[in-house]
């Protein structure tokens, strides 16, 4: 089938060169084999090798989502964690868990998925010497401080909290109570790994083998990956198409042009500049749904100017000086929604999202804003500089718009300026070295759809993404209580109490919730985005 496709493209190229005839994706019935046709989709080059515990960005995550299935899987529509490979996960004390893995599951190389597949994978991910960037996900499991010490060399290669107790069962002992731990297990870092991963690592990296609905047919790093339907996939969410060809694009504008020309089937990142044309270009084949991403402005609490009494009034004043509605409508063409809390609508009210929790602090009110900033002692140094990285997205546009809004509200055209940093790496670097002197762009894409994930990593004392080093005893207490609470409803209530502490101190200014967008060709149907703004590839129908 691949040879045939190849020849077809070659024929197209020749035809184009000689006769200058059109050769778009119109000739649709490619790949007439079992399982239907293959679709092509835009992709970005993954930053890290495609190991589950080493993939922390969307592009690599996209592939893992097709090639792997974990204990749990987040429902593409509701985001709720549902059992996938997990038969059951039991715990009596929110600290010791017994996990039973469904039998009958296999990796695409024929190896059975057992309890050992999980335990080995988790031990690999938690081991310092393997340089896995998601290692901290295993930080709750007992023995992590031995396999992944903060300094020095590791004294153990395996987590003492993990024990295989039978072919399909294993136990997990956490170092602290964490009632929602089972719901985090849908994250890619917890995926099982076949033995081939450990015995022939280099070979596995070249062509990863997993237990998901697709197998990788070929992978040319940096340019293309061909995934094909795995016919023997034992799960209920079998692929509805013959496969997916992921093509790397450097510029999402080119991908969009290719889509319009019929050269590509699916684009999952419609460039901001094209948003006004998208309706007429695609005639409704366009999707714009909420994703688990919130943009905020964080503050440097290590800077005494931002951490004195009264500065919460300044922060609240700044928040009220931002006309979120106007910015999201004019700059983002409604692909962002003004934020009214610190989580995301994809959680749903049951999951802890509370519309309007922020209250008046997030409403645009120039007079009140001006008053609050004055009461709080004015802007430190007479001016705020919003630091952002200028290399991705449309950060410059919105930062300028936010500053404009602040300047207008405060009646001072020097009150706010943008402070661009050339690259993302340098931006992260300056944040890491505590060089921020004012608010800075902080985006958070959830790892798993739990309210805990929107609060603890960002605002808990010394948490991994608490870039501003905000610290509050009340907040920490609420989070600790919530994690120890085995009743999910009560736990969520406690998390919301913690969120109210964030609100009362305006620890970070919530800006807007980000939507995921996708556009597709007329060959496709049933296109949807999951809460992580990744297309649900296995449900897409071609033809």
């Amino acid at each position, binding site marked *: 089938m691949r040879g045939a496709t190849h020849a077809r*493209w070659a024929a197209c*190229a*020749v035809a*184009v*060169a000689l006769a*200058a*005839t*059109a*050769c*778009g994706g119109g000739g649709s019935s490619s790949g007439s084999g079992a399982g239907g046709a293959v679709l092509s989709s835009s992709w970005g*080059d*993954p*930053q*890290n090798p495609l190991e589950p515990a080493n993939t*922390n*960005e969307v592009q690599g995550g996209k592939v893992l989502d097709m090639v792997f299935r974990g204990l749990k899987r987040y429902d593409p529509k509701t985001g709720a964690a549902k059992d996938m490979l997990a038969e059951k996960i039991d715990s009596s004390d929110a600290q010791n868990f017994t996990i039973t893995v469904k039998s009958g599951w296999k990796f695409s190389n024929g190896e059975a998925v057992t309890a050992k597949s999980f335990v080995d994978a988790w031990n690999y991910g938690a081991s*310092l*010497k393997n*340089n*896995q*960037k998601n290692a*901290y996900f295993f930080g709750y499991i007992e023995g992590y401080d031995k396999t*992944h*010490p*903060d*300094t020095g060399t590791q004294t153990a290669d395996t987590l003492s909290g993990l024990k295989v107790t039978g072919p399909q069962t294993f136990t997990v002992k956490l170092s602290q109570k964490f009632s929602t731990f089972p719901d985090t297990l849908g994250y890619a870092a917890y995926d099982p790994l076949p033995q081939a991963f450990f015995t022939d690592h280099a070979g596995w990296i070249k062509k990863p083998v997993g237990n998901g609905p697709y197998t990788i047919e070929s992978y*040319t*790093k*940096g*340019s*293309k990956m061909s995934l094909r339907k795995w016919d023997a996939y034992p799960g209920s969410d079998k692929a509805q198409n013959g496969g997916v060809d992921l*093509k*790397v694009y*450097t*510029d999402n504008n*080119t*991908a969009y*042009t*290719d889509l319009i*020309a019929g*050269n590509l089937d699916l684009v999952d990142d419609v460039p901001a500049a094209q948003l006004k044309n998208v309706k007429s270009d695609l005639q409704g084949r366009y999707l714009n749904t909420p994703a688990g991403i919130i943009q905020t402005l964080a503050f440097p609490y290590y800077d005494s100017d931002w951490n004195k009494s009264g500065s919460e009034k300044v922060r609240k004043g700044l928040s009220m000086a931002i006309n979120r509605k106007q910015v999201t409508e004019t700059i983002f063409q409604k692909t962002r929604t003004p934020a009214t809390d610190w989580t995301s609508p994809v959680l749903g009210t049951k999951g802890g999202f509370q519309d309007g929790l922020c209250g008046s602090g997030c409403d645009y009110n120039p007079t009140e804003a001006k008053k609050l900033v004055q009461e709080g002692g004015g802007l430190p140094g007479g001016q705020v500089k919003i630091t952002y990285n200028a*290399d991705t997205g449309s950060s410059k546009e919105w930062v300028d718009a936010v500053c404009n809004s602040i300047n207008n509200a405060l009646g001072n055209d020097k009150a706010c300026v943008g402070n661009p940093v*050339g*690259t*993302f*790496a*340098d*931006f*992260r*670097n*300056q944040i*890491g070295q505590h060089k921020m002197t004012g608010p800075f762009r*902080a*985006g*958070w*894409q959830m790892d798993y759809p739990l309210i805990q994930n929107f609060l603890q*990593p960002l605002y808990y004392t010394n948490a*991994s*993404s608490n*870039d501003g080093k905000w610290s509050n005893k009340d907040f920490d207490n609420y989070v600790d209580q919530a994690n120890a609470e085995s009743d999910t409803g009560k736990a969520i209530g406690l998390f919301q109490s913690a969120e109210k502490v964030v609100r009362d101190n305006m620890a970070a200014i919530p800006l807007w919730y980000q939507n995921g967008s996708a556009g597709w060709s007329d060959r496709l149907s049933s296109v949807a985005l999951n809460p992580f703004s990744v297309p649900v590839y296995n449900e897409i129908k071609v033809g």
Partner: protein
Amino acid sequence: MGRYVVRRLLQMIPVFIGATLLIFLMVNVMGDPIAGLCGERQCDPATAAQLKKEFGLDKSVWQQYLTYMGNVFTGDFGTAFNGQKVTDLMATAFPVTIRLTIVAIFFEIVIGITLGVVTGLRRGRPVDTSVLLLTLVVISVPTFVTGLLLQLLLGVEWGWIKPSVSSDATFSELIVPGLVLASVSLAYVTRLTRTSIAENRRSDYVRTAVAKGLPRRRVIIRHLLRNSLIPVVTFIGTDIGALMGGAIVTERIFNIHGVGYQLYQGILRQNTQTVVGFVTVLVLVFLVANLLVDLLYAVLDPRIRYA
């Protein structure tokens, strides 16, 4: 001649070392590249330290540079952050960019010199004026405008080509991107040739050749053009390097995964190994192209000799 080449090759060594050192320092000034690897969060300190050790970033810049240069001489250009060898990246990127450059140079030579000769011989005529006007337009419009316009017209509106180049990047797919890449240089080549031809047309040797009764074709090609090509060859020679390194914009528009793409990604991710490796090779290309240009002078004009 041989001694001249050897001398030039020896001169390349300090230029090479200086250029790589500068690039190395510039990339290093941008700061710690590990910070960008962990998304919107702090890399956990243990993993960050481990990664730094692996990439040799825990040493001083001088030590890093010396180790790097030592490795380069054994053919090891290091490893990119995604675990790929930089030599592997080069092996995939350079053939694509070389093909693109060949297409571009081909257009420069064929269209540029032809137009130059035609206009040079017909100075002041309508052909000359219109070509001059056209080149002026091409020079003043930025490459990305030409590129996007052609992509939209030929790729989307008329459907003559595919708007993006596939990962194979065959010659036939590279015709339009090559033309876009060559456009500005092409205009310069036209103008250079035109001026040079117009100047030499009245020189003594041309008059002699005409007086001898040689056919017009022979006068123009063997006598006039050959002598007029020296500035053009200089320009095209230096342009080879510029085209290979400067294709970033064109490669981005047409989604070509060549040198420009790798450099762009390397810079965004502050990947010292990739950036320095690719730039080092580009520096070598520049140096060799310059040497070849100088040697070509002697071929074109026997009066020039190297000792």
